[in-house]
């Protein structure tokens, strides 16, 4: 009765993973700053009414920081959900889930960036 050790012996490490781990930490620190800034910004607005929020988001610094927030958050949850999927799913299901994760990440990121830029470039549009 052998084990599966023989099939991997001599291959060395996977030679990847440190980069994934490190970018997860880098984006975590970015999220710490950006999401806290976002929450505090919303709390400082006089209300969450349409005119108030669009006027805030149409200004250059909030628009750029919100775009950075979207990229950073999407990158972070892309890495995080990948680890969850790899822990619990195997075989074909894993490949399907990782594909769905790609679609989810880019779909949500694209929609969010377009929305931010539309408000930023057209001003607080009416209607």
């Amino acid at each position, binding site marked *: 009765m052998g084990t*599966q050790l023989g099939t991997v012996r001599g291959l060395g490490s996977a030679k990847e993973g440190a980069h994934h781990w490190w970018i997860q*930490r880098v984006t975590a620190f970015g999220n710490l700053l950006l999401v806290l800034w976002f929450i505090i910004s919303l709390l400082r607005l006089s209300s969450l009414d*349409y005119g108030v929020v669009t006027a805030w988001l149409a200004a250059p610094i909030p628009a750029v920081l919100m775009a950075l927030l979207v990229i950073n958050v999407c990158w972070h949850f892309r890495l*995080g959900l990948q680890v969850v999927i790899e822990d619990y799913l195997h075989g074909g299901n894993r490949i399907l889930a990782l594909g769905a994760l790609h679609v989810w990440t880019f779909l949500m990121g694209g*929609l*969010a960036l377009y929305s931010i830029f539309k408000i930023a470039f057209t001003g607080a*549009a009416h209607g």
Partner: protein
Amino acid sequence: MQGHIMAVRNARPLSPHLGIYKWGPHMLVSIMNRAMGVGLATVGTLGFVGWLVALASGEAAYADFMSCVTSCYYLGYLIAIGLTFAFFFHMLAGIRHFVMDAGAGFELKANRLWSWLTLGGAVVLTVGTWLIIFGKAV
């Protein structure tokens, strides 16, 4: 072949898993951190992007979105408050991970203390945030 390998693997002893350990706050915070992360990435992203898309679609669409959040009174607020807690928990647990990545905070008492503070801090920050929101609404 595949079946043979599986049979061999199944015949071998497994390493100890969750079932045999006595539960402590560090285990709770660890699994909750993953759960909160998954919740933020799915429900949180959907809510955040939905809010942005509604905002970009104009005043009427934005009003619909906001009334949807606030009119089904308990459900909308429940999700919003839940996401607030999920964010603060994930944030504090992440800061705890930064400390542990540096090799610190593994002593039993320190680990226990910071685990409880992660949980308690998330509750305090969530309550504080919503006190500000409801204070402004009145």
